[in-house]
C-alpha cells in the first residue's frame, strides 16, 4: 500500500484522529485546482471592467464548485475530530512557546501575515488620500471648469457621514461585529466548561455560534444595502432627510470605480446658493466668482481612485467576514452534532482569534473609511 499511514486508507476522510498525523488527503490538490480555475475563469468573464457576456459566467461557478468540493473533503476529514475523545492536539516542546497548542501558535503566525495584508491596503489608501487633493479643496480653489472632469479624492465618508441615516448601516455593522466578537468568546467559555450537562453545553455552544453566524450575515447584508440597495425611510422620518423618501446607496450616488464624471450637489455653486448654505466666503472660488473670473457651476470629478481604495479595502475586510461565515457554518453544524467538548474547545478559540482580528481591522476601517 502506498498511503503513508495504513490506519487511514481513505484520502477522502473521515479520519481516525487517535493516531495524529500524517493523513492522506485530496483536499489540498482539489482546493488548489479550484482556486486556479476560479482566477482563470473570472478573468475570462471581465476585461478591464467590461463584462464579456453570460456565456463565461457558469465557468466561474465551476471554479467555485471545485473549491467548495475541496473544502467539503477537508471538513469531512475534520468532523470526527474531537468526537469520542479523539483529540490530537500536540503542544509546543521548546521555549518560548512551551506547552502552548501548536495550532494556536500557527494561528497567531497567520495573523501576522494578515496584519501585513491590511497594512499594504492602508498604505495604498494613505498614499492616495494624502497624495491627491480632496474634491472639497479642489472645488473651493476654483481650479476647475464646468464640463471637464478634474481628478480629486472624494472620501466615501463624505457620503456616508453626511447624515445619521447614511451612516446607519455602517454603525449597525460596527455593533454587529462587536457583539459577534462577544458571542464567539461566550461560545468558547461554554465549550470549556466541564461542570455542566453535556446537552446544555451543546445547546449553548450552538446558540452562540449560530448568533455569531447570524451577525456575520447581518454584516454583509448591511454592506449590500450600503453599497448597492439603499433603503426607504418611513414617512415620519422624511423631514429629517431633506424631505427625501429613500436613503441612496453608494451605487445610486454614483460612487463607483468607473466614476470619471462624478457629481455631487455640494460641488454645485447653484445648489449651494439656492440651498441657502452658500459658498464658504473664505474660499478662493467665492473670491473668483465675486470678481467674475469664475463662472461657477457644477464641478465634475474623476473619483475612480477614491472609490477603488474604498471598495477594495472594505471589500477585503468583507471577504474576511465571508470567509468567517463559511467557517462558522461548518462549526455551527459541528456544534449542533455535539462535536465540541472541553478537550477540543480550542478549535473555537482559534476561529475566535481570526474573528477578533477581523473585528480589530474594522475598528480601524470604520473611522478611517466611513467617518473621516
Amino acid at each position: 500500500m502506498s498511503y503513508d499511514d495504513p490506519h487511514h486508507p481513505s484520502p477522502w476522510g473521515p479520519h481516525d484522529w487517535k493516531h495524529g498525523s500524517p493523513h492522506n488527503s485530496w483536499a489540498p490538490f482539489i482546493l488548489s485546482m479550484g482556486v486556479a480555475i476560479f482566477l482563470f475563469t473570472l478573468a475570462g468573464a471581465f476585461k478591464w471592467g467590461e463584462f464579456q457576456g453570460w456565456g463565461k459566467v457558469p465557468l466561474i461557478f465551476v471554479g467555485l464548485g471545485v473549491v467548495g468540493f475541496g473544502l467539503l473533503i477537508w471538513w469531512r476529514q475534520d468532523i470526527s475530530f474531537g468526537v469520542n475523545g479523539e483529540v490530537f492536539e500536540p503542544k509546543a516542546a521548546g521555549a518560548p512557546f512551551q506547552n502552548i497548542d501548536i495550532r494556536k501558535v500557527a494561528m497567531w503566525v497567520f495573523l501576522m501575515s494578515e496584519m501585513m495584508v491590511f497594512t499594504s491596503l492602508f498604505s495604498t489608501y494613505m498614499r492616495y488620500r494624502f497624495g491627491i487633493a480632496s474634491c472639497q479643496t479642489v472645488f473651493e480653489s476654483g481650479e476647475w471648469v464646468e464640463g471637464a472632469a478634474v481628478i480629486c479624492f472624494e472620501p466615501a465618508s463624505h457620503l456616508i457621514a453626511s447624515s445619521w441615516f447614511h451612516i446607519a448601516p455602517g454603525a449597525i455593522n460596527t455593533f454587529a461585529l462587536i457583539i459577534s466578537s462577544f458571542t464567539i468568546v461566550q461560545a468558547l467559555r461554554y465549550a470549556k466548561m466541564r461542570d455542566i450537562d453535556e446537552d446544555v453545553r451543546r445547546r449553548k455552544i450552538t446558540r452562540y455560534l449560530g448568533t455569531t453566524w447570524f451577525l456575520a450575515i447581518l454584516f454583509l447584508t448591511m454592506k449590500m444595502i450600503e453599497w448597492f440597495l439603499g433603503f426607504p425611510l418611513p414617512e415620519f422620518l422624511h423631514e429629517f432627510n431633506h424631505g427625501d423618501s429613500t436613503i441612496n446607496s453608494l451605487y445610486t450616488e454614483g460612487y463607483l470605480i468607473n466614476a470619471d464624471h462624478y457629481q455631487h450637489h455640494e460641488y454645485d455653486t447653484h445648489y449651494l446658493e439656492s440651498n441657502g448654505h452658500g459658498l464658504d466666503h473664505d474660499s478662493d472660488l467665492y473670491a473668483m466668482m465675486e470678481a467674475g473670473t469664475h463662472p461657477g457651476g457644477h464641478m465634475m470629478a474623476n473619483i475612480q481612485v477614491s472609490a477603488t481604495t474604498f471598495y477594495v479595502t472594505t471589500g477585503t475586510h468583507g471577504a474576511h467576514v465571508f470567509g468567517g461565515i463559511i467557517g462558522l457554518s461548518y462549526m455551527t453544524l459541528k456544534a449542533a452534532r455535539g462535536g465540541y467538548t472541553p478537550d477540543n474547545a480550542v478549535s473555537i478559540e482559534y476561529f475566535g482569534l481570526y474573528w477578533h482580528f477581523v473585528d480589530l481591522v474594522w475598528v480601524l476601517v470604520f473611522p478611517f473609511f466611513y467617518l473621516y
Partner: protein
Amino acid sequence: MAHYKIMGQDPYWMNFYGLMILTLMEILAVGTDLGPAANSLGTEEKVLTLWILTIIAIPKFIMIAAIFMHLYGDEDSGILTMTALFPAFFILIMVLFVGLTHPNAASGLPDWCRPGNYGL
C-alpha cells in the same frame, strides 16, 4: 480563558459594555457639530474628528486584543503578545516608506541629506 475579573464582574461582559460605549462615542463624535470646539482649538472640524476617532480607536483595539484575544491574563499571554507585536517594525517601515512618501516626487534633495550642509 480569563481567570480574572474586572471590577468584580465577568471580564467578557465588562469588555463588551466598554466597547459598546466607545463605539457610541465614535458615532456621536462624527454626528455632533464640532465646528465651534475645533475653532476654539485653532483647528478644523475634520482634524479634530480624526483625533477623537484615533484616540478612541486605540483603547478599543487594546480591549479586543487583550481581553477577547486573551493577550492579557493567560499563561501564554506574554509570548503571544510578543508574537502579535513582532510585525510592528515592518508595519512601521511600510507605512513610512510606502504610505507616506509623497507621490509627486520632490525635485530637490533636502539640505540635511547633503554633504555640503555639514561642511564636507
